[in-house]
């Protein structure tokens, strides 16, 4: 990559060739990978970066005084800088490397939450959170005696914010997803953050589905914490980051205890390292975090605004095309504005699992189930949905194939 092309000349076929896995047939058919919401595919340069690290630089960080360790440390910290720049953090000290979004949110719940939540305090979530931004809060609420409230959604899957100011009374933290992994809804987190701050609450944004797909600027959003995974944004599994405002991170107790996170250890006690090291106990995912930096370079070379614009076009096309499929019920906002490239659906008379299995035989990979979002499915009164989610390497032809295979599934069960 490296050359910026106009969005109208988005050279998608060249881009696709950078993803080796997409060249591989499935059941003898071309792979249409429509499950990037679960985990994205990786471009060659990210795979190469991982390989290069293990072949040439592999050594532990922050402790060796020999050349390899210094190189590994340099590359690891350079990747931290790339993450910081990618989301417009003020300082690279605000970036904590974690394994995934789930770990990032658990970190905040267990450190900030344990230090700041008291019986009777309130935590405000939404009914569209996935389990990663739900279970850690339920666990810390149980431990601290805090109570959880949920913002509800309207018939189109948008958050109801009319009574937000009232709902914010007594709330210490608002934890909200930037984009729903089921409905595709993009939430107005800047507005929520401004109102939450006015009520004295801090704001955590679950960026698992937004950071990979659109420009995310933590300063412009005016939020306090951002959690996201590397594996959903062309990076390796086991990579991800928590961004937090430095003042908040500084005041937080450690998460996991062990090596690296200390300043001084005696048999009597320990003083802890400064942020972000305090939150990175043990040997981190060094090669994976470096390769996440490579994924960020790849995405930045294409351009996040262009990726978002392209995916919105794809989504609009998909909404249009899928609305023609008989018996197909789509969930979430009906138009591509204010939503991302995630479309959940049910096909009348065919269980989502069967839909996914039939699509698989056509080489089409979609997810079926409740997408780690059980309460939302309970609310919609459906046990499961099938979900197609797009990324920068998907093409309109794959959506045509999806629509055709859905018609086939419907006929099979008719």
């Amino acid at each position, binding site marked *: 990559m490296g050359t910026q092309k106009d969005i109208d000349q988005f050279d998608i076929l060249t881009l696709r060739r950078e993803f080796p896995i997409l060249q591989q047939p499935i059941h003898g058919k071309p792979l249409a990978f429509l499950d990037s919401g679960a985990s994205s595919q990786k471009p060659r340069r990210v795979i190469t970066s991982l390989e290069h690290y293990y072949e040439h630089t592999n050594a532990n960080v922050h402790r060796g005084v020999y050349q390899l360790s210094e190189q590994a440390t340099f590359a690891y910290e350079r990747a931290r800088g790339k993450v910081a720049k990618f989301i417009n953090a003020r300082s690279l000290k605000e970036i904590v490397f974690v394994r995934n979004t789930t770990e990032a949110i658990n970190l905040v719940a267990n450190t900030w939450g344990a230090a700041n939540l008291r019986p009777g305090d309130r935590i405000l979530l939404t009914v569209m959170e996935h389990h990663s931004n739900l279970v850690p809060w339920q666990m810390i609420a149980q431990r601290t005696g805090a109570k959880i409230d949920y913002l509800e959604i309207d018939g189109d899957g948008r958050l109801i914010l009319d009574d937000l100011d009232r709902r914010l009374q007594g709330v210490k933290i608002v934890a909200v997803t930037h984009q729903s992994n089921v409905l595709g809804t993009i939430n107005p987190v800047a507005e929520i953050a401004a109102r939450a701050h006015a009520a004295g609450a801090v704001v955590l944004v679950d960026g698992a589905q937004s950071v990979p797909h659109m420009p995310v600027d933590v300063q412009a959003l005016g939020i306090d914490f951002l959690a996201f995974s590397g594996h959903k944004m062309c990076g390796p599994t086991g990579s991800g980051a928590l961004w937090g405002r430095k003042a908040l991170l500084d005041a937080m107790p450690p998460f996991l205890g062990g090596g690296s996170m200390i300043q001084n250890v005696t048999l009597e006690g320990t003083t802890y390292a400064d942020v972000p090291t305090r939150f990175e106990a043990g040997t981190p995912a060094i090669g994976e975090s470096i390769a996440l930096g490579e994924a960020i370079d790849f995405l930045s070379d294409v351009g996040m605004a262009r990726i978002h614009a392209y995916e919105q076009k794809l989504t609009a096309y998909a909404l249009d095309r899928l609305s023609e499929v008989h018996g197909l019920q789509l969930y979430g906002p009906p138009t591509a504005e204010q939503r991302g490239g995630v479309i959940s659906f049910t096909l009348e008379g065919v269980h989502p*699992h*069967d839909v996914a*299995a*039939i699509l698989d035989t056509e080489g089409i990979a979609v997810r*079926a*189930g409740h997408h780690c979002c059980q309460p939302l*499915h309970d609310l919609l009164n459906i*046990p*499961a949905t099938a979900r197609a989610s797009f990324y920068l390497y998907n093409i309109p032809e794959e959506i045509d194939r999806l629509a055709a295979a859905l018609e086939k599934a419907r006929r*099979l069960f008719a």
Partner: protein
Amino acid sequence: MDDLYRELIIEHSKYPHNAGTLENPTVTQEEKNPLCGDQIKIDLAIEDGVITDVRFVGRGCAISQAATSLLTDEIKGKSLDEIKQLTKDDVLDLIGIPLGHNPVRIKCALLPLKAVKAGVYSFLGTQLEDDEDEL
């Protein structure tokens, strides 16, 4: 597609045998597959150590519902000892589709066996053995 969704599976999922509930079941057993939301509730009538009647209510994917329909036909008239001997392979033979490579769908297919066995064991006053739980 033809392999996984043979006519038999489609037929049984659309028109399941033994659908409904029993008026006075000896045992009622419910099982769920949290991954895909499959659920079945099986009523068993047991007389003199034999399954004399069975009904089920369920919702879920075609594989789970067809497997339940087929298994309920199979167990009628069988002794509890025979039920205890039923294996994963018996169920896979019944539904006759190649699921061996797909651990997720195997869970769907074996849900009714888990329910029937759990029901029988609870009737017998014993617990499912650990290895049975791993069906």
